[in-house]
């Protein structure tokens, strides 16, 4: 019987099967940020086990609230910083070099096809875009990951999602994944891996694939996975150039991680995106999704562009193309957070930052910021934000606030109009 990519990665990393149905895997990358890691490292210290399994395989960043906004967040940052120094974790990213974890770590070349990755952050599934098994875990799993380099999972069951057709203009990876979550439901992939395949994925950049994989957790998925190909190899080339003769060689090697033709799936879904319209969420769950046209005209107080879902350069380019030469509506507060310093610098060089600022946007430093309602754009009760992030939970961006999830194009169009707006209104193509 053939294997799925997840089953192949599990087999290659199996350390122990303590019980039927449970696999303890060796972990290639343990990622850390300042919200979920401090309790883990304090607990290790309290147990007299202030050690790390391998400092080169641990990467850490301060990203959720940065620079620190108050004494409490300063303490969290300090605990992480001191710990990283104490253990010689060379890849630690502090103020000035830090950015949103799931944008920063791929950009630094820390992921490879076939890797196992854990982090105390549910959107760790993002890294599955590279053909890795990447899962969000809690602080205790993180703690054991830091100490022993292992993590336990149930046997991986996979849902395969085929994305067929060609994306219409002004319809993007974000619209695709919102639509898919709307179809699967917030519980549709719980405890399962979602494997995204088909011509739509094949045609996507790594940035777009990360947008798709990022939201696998919103359907309950353990990891979202794309099969590694030439696009993956080209993105990683600066980091893997010494390991392969040429890109063809890398692409051929990556094929060892592709699911077998006779692999067994729990479920198969097929969607043709050729007639897909821009999507928006309307409730407090990410599966409450409908076409933007059905919500067009609703008033908005804030537009937020950024996050691990849509704060990458390609997202900023799309938004800036719509904003160029225009002003955002008087009643709207526009906020953009480029996800990493590199993205910020690229956006500066390309004139994108200038476009945002001339349109009336506030440009913040790279951080999660408003996404989880901790800084840089928290909503007041009763306020509405159209956001390129991934969660619309009640109170997520501030107590009593409402969040509508959209693509960067829809966010930009909405900022200009001051009400929820279909970006195709601005499509001249």
């Amino acid at each position, binding site marked *: 019987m053939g294997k799925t990519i997840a089953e192949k990665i599990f087999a290659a990393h199996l*350390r*122990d099967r*303590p*019980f*039927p*149905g*449970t696999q*303890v895997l060796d972990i290639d990358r343990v990622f850390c940020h300042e*919200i*979920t890691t*401090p*309790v883990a490292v*304090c*607990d290790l210290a309290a*147990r007299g*086990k202030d050690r790390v399994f391998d400092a080169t395989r641990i990467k850490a960043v301060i990203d*959720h*609230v940065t620079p620190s906004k*108050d004494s*409490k*967040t300063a*303490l*969290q940052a300090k*605990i992480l910083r001191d710990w990283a120094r104490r253990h010689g974790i060379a890849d630690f990213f502090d103020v000035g070099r830090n950015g949103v974890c799931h944008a920063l770590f791929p950009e630094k070349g820390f992921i490879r096809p076939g890797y196992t990755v854990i982090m*105390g*952050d*549910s959107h*760790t599934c993002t890294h599955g875009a590279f053909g890795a098994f990447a899962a*969000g*875990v*809690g*602080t*205790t*799993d993180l*703690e*054991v990951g830091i*100490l*022993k380099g*292992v993590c*336990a999972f*149930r046997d991986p069951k996979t849902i395969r999602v085929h994305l067929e057709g060609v994306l219409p203009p002004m319809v993007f990876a974000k619209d695709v994944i919102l639509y898919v979550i709307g179809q699967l439901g*917030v*519980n549709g992939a*719980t*405890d399962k891996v979602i494997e995204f395949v088909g011509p739509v994925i094949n045609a996507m950049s790594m940035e777009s694939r990360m947008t798709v994989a990022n939201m696998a957790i919103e359907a*309950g998925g*353990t990891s979202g996975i794309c099969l590694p190909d030439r696009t993956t190899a080209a993105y990683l080339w600066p980091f893997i150039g010494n390991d392969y003769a040429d890109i063809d060689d890398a692409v051929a090697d990556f094929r060892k991680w592709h699911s077998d033709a006779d692999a067994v799936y729990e479920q198969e879904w097929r969607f043709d995106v050729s007639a897909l319209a821009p999507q928006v969420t309307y409730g407090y*769950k990410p599966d409450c999704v409908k076409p933007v046209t059905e919500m067009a005209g609703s008033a908005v107080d804030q537009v937020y562009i950024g996050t691990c879902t849509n704060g990458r350069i390609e997202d900023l380019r799309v938004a800036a193309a719509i904003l160029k030469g225009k002003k955002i509506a008087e009643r709207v507060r526009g906020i953009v957070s480029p996800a990493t310093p590199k993205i910020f610098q690229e956006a500066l060089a390309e004139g994108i930052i200038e476009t945002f600022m001339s349109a009336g946007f506030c440009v913040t430093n790279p951080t999660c910021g408003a996404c*989880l*309602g*901790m800084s840089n754009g928290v909503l007041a009760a009763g306020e509405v934000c159209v956001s390129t992030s991934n*969660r619309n*939970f*009640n*109170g*997520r961006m501030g*107590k009593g606030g409402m969040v509508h999830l959209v693509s960067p194009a829809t966010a930009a169009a909405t900022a200009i109009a001051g009400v929820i707006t279909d970006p195709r209104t601005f499509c001249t193509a």
Partner: protein
Amino acid sequence: MAKNFSGPAVFLDRSDINTDEIIPARYLTEVTKEALKPYLLEDLKLEGFDPQGEKLARAGVVVARSNFGCGSSREHAAWAFEVNGIHTLIAGSFSRIFRQNMFNCGMLAIELPEADLEKLFALARKGEVTISVDLENSRISAEAAGTKEAIQFAITSFDRALVEAGGWVEFADRRY
């Protein structure tokens, strides 16, 4: 560290209760579990439920519908129950990360089939329900206003081993 798996139960009659509702992000700046105590379920809006109420303060068990604990990976959600003396959660289903966090802390996240879960909710309509969990025999005993229910449950061998060991750190430290 022995956990108490019994006590008065609070019923949350809703699916998809997420970890932002269990413990909002604004409290994630705390670096100790104890500090989370006053904020459990603060953002949960549900008819008849009061996060500051005396019922939640006395509870030892919480019962809810499906996909409980979805969303953020924050273990703060499991800790917020733990420091409030609630070491057993019973639901139709849990999100993967939340369920794992509970067992990793040596606590119980018990999934029940619809019909069994309904028996508990039916009991709750009679009056206050007290639940006790017999881990050894995989049995839940529930009682309200003189009516009793006994329900068998199943957890994996791994989950059971985590509870018995007191959590994943203890288990993993011994074994790896």
